[in-house]
């Protein structure tokens, strides 16, 4: 497992210029909202949680396509599948790696973007926490979608169609936590539900994604 993680980490690091793209995309999407809706700081503060989440969701979608692409193209997926290493382990490594380079990076960006949207600074720790959890679920569920379309040549838009409905609960719980804190009420309930979702997704998704990936390998 450590070896798989190290391999993923190295592969991602060698392609770091590609990893910047989702982050830049995130910044640009966030910039669209004040220009498109209103530059008024008070109104932006109300919209900020939703904007941050939608932008992070879209940026994650953009990066999912690459999760299995290179490994599928150069045949290393088949190598792993025939080597006796469980596919689920490889997928878990890919999920954690994807989260590290995309989800966590997006999360770390969020305070800066939050400032631009006039989100109160007192909410930043909570925002960091829920985004970290939420993007972990994004990477995990996204792995299933990416595995399903791994064998297809043009899969970007299809992948979005498959995965967005499954992301909706995360979006609701994530923005729900921050909005609850913004309104001054307890945010424990949505936050715990989000954490439970993360645990469940992390435990189940690698197996489902492995079954899906097996299909495109056998193909």
């Amino acid at each position, binding site marked *: 497992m450590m070896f798989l993680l190290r391999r993923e980490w190295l592969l991602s690091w060698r392609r770091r210029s590609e990893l910047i793209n989702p982050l830049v995309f995130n910044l640009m999407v966030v910039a669209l909202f004040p220009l498109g809706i209103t530059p008024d700081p008070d109104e932006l503060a109300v919209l900020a949680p939703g904007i941050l989440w939608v932008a992070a969701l879209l940026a994650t979608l953009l990066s999912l396509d690459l999760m299995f692409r290179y490994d599928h193209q150069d045949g290393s997926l088949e190598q792993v599948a025939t080597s006796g290493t469980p596919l689920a382990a490889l997928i878990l490594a890919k999920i954690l790696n994807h989260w590290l380079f995309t989800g966590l990076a997006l999360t770390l960006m969020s305070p800066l973007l939050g400032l631009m949207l006039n989100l109160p600074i007192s909410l930043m720790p909570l925002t960091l926490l829920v985004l970290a959890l939420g993007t972990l679920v994004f990477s995990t569920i996204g792995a299933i979608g990416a595995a399903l379309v791994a064998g*297809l040549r043009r899969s970007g838009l299809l992948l979005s169609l*498959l995965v967005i409905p499954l992301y909706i609960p995360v979006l609701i719980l994530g923005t729900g936590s921050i909005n609850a804190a913004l309104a001054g009420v307890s945010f424990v309930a949505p936050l715990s539900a989000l954490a439970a979702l993360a645990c469940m997704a992390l435990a189940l998704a690698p197996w489902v994604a492995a079954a899906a990936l097996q299909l495109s390998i056998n193909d």
Partner: protein
Amino acid sequence: MAFSMTPVWRWFHRWTSPPNFYRIARPWALGLMLVGGVALLVAWIWGLVFAPEDYLQGNSYRIIFVHVPSASASLAMYLSMAILAVISLVWKIKLADMVLRQCIPVGLTLTALALISGAIWGRPTWGVYWIWDARLTSMLVQLFLFIGMWAIHTAIEQQKLADKATAILVLVGFVNLPIIKWSVDWWNTMHQPATIRITGETTMVWEMLAPLLLSMAATYCVVAALVLYRTRWEILYRERKTRWVQDELGLRGQA
């Protein structure tokens, strides 16, 4: 494989063989369509003309005879599809894939019909066509799931791969089904909780309930008939290279 040759198993394989199913599905589809069609007509006339007016909503409640059957049938459809997906992935029965494929457009239509009729009903009763409450949102997610299934099945060219990928997606999306079902009990929603209950008291007068139940039963029959008809076409299409289909369509000897 000694296990696979038990008499029950052999019978099951013979029954689910495409040529056999193609033949036995025909009278079933016809019968269900006739019974369902007539019953639906009776239920709608009964519901629209003879059922009493609602004391609060007046005549606008009568869209219930479209809304509830289509919503209920769409959920039943998703449940059946999940079962078919398990059958397809575990026992690799070809027929399950064919039925599953043709459930997608029917389920999609039912879900859309439930959403649209609900929106039309929402305007006079809630004052708005659409609100983002739990029941409506989870139903919208189901619509997205159906679209996703359709998209992935169309996108993957290799038949077997498309079938399996769709089955996996059906099972992953299954988590949404209990959310739709119990959303009205778990959260405070604008949408009312269930009126018809299998256990416990049904809070509806008989004169409204009877046509509603009839319209639901009729819709289930029509939906089953539609799936059977479409499955027959799917069988013909997928087995078009085989001898029995060529014989069936009278194509042999011409080419």
